[in-house]
């Protein structure tokens, strides 16, 4: 499991153990990864987050166009596994959960323990830290070297 902030890990661990989900991804509404379990490549997790956030954003917009308050959660059931996608509010703003589960559990169990995850995260969130500079004043030399290496120049 990888999480941006350590306080996310205990509630997410409990959710994984109880729901028996295979993959779980927590992201911001704009698709930035907050925590993940079950992915092997960090770049794949970013693609999954972008697509998950896109689905939620378009569903929310669809609800607005249709004059409905919200369309809530989305669930896709495949032959071998299912996907549960849900936006939820945290003290750090609106997040989205993407949960992939197999036949060893069910959508109902995932939803049940997801409700607890949302409550646990709300209870565990410390006050947001003040943001400040994180990069050195002369970061540009490293940035340019990284970009040159990326483009083979």
């Amino acid at each position, binding site marked *: 499991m990888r999480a941006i902030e350590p306080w996310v890990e205990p509630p997410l661990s409990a959710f994984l153990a109880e729901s028996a989900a295979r993959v779980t991804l927590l992201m911001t509404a704009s698709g930035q990864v907050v925590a993940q379990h079950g992915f092997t490549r960090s*770049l794949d997790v970013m*693609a999954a987050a972008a697509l998950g956030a896109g689905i939620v954003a378009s569903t929310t*917009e669809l609800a607005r166009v249709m004059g409905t308050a919200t369309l809530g959660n989305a669930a896709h059931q495949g032959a071998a596994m299912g996907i549960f996608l849900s936006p939820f509010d945290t003290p750090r703003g609106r997040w989205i959960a993407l949960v992939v589960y197999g036949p060893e559990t069910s959508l109902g169990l995932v939803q049940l323990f997801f409700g607890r995850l949302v409550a646990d995260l709300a209870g565990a969130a410390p006050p947001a830290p003040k943001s400040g500079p994180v*990069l050195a*004043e002369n*970061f540009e030399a490293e940035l340019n070297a990284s970009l040159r290496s*990326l483009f083979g120049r």
Partner: protein
Amino acid sequence: MPLVNFTAREITCKLVYYGPGRCGKTTNLQYIHGRVPEHRRGNMVSLATQSDRTLFFDFLPLELGVISGFTTRFQLYTVPGQVYYNATRRLVLQGADGVVFVVDSQARRFDDNVESFQNLQENLLDQGIDVRQLPLVLQYNKQDLPQDLILNPAELDDAFNFRAVRSQPADALHGTGVFETLKALSGLVLERLAVRPPAS
């Protein structure tokens, strides 16, 4: 602001390529995807129509390397350019840390560029973002076309560059200016996370 993971010492930035339909936004990402080694990028995700026009977005994650001790990643997005896809453009623009506005340099596309640029400002304003506060780079694409068909960078600067931001002539199909555009925007975005030099 870019997402900073202090525990894992990672920075993730969302960069959006914006502009009118067929200006070359997807071409920018395709060129980058083709040039960057596989272990430094993810798969390019394209949600496109059957005729390969962007329907929702293109997405390309890049791993830049370590900068000031932070592993830095960029998430590159494009928006659909066609006028009637504004709802999806707004969604993709959410949380953008910086924007490349890709201008189609062809003289006959001038009005489309203006409309798209105004649309960018409106969509940012809807999210409470003043375009003057957001890191922005203008890319004047298709500068390889015959001179009688296009506007030159000085003419395009007169029309679009009221903030005197970095503008970059480009031929995205062959890669000219693509690297420089990304370099300029990433510098502006990361600058916001950097220690400022003491005022003299």
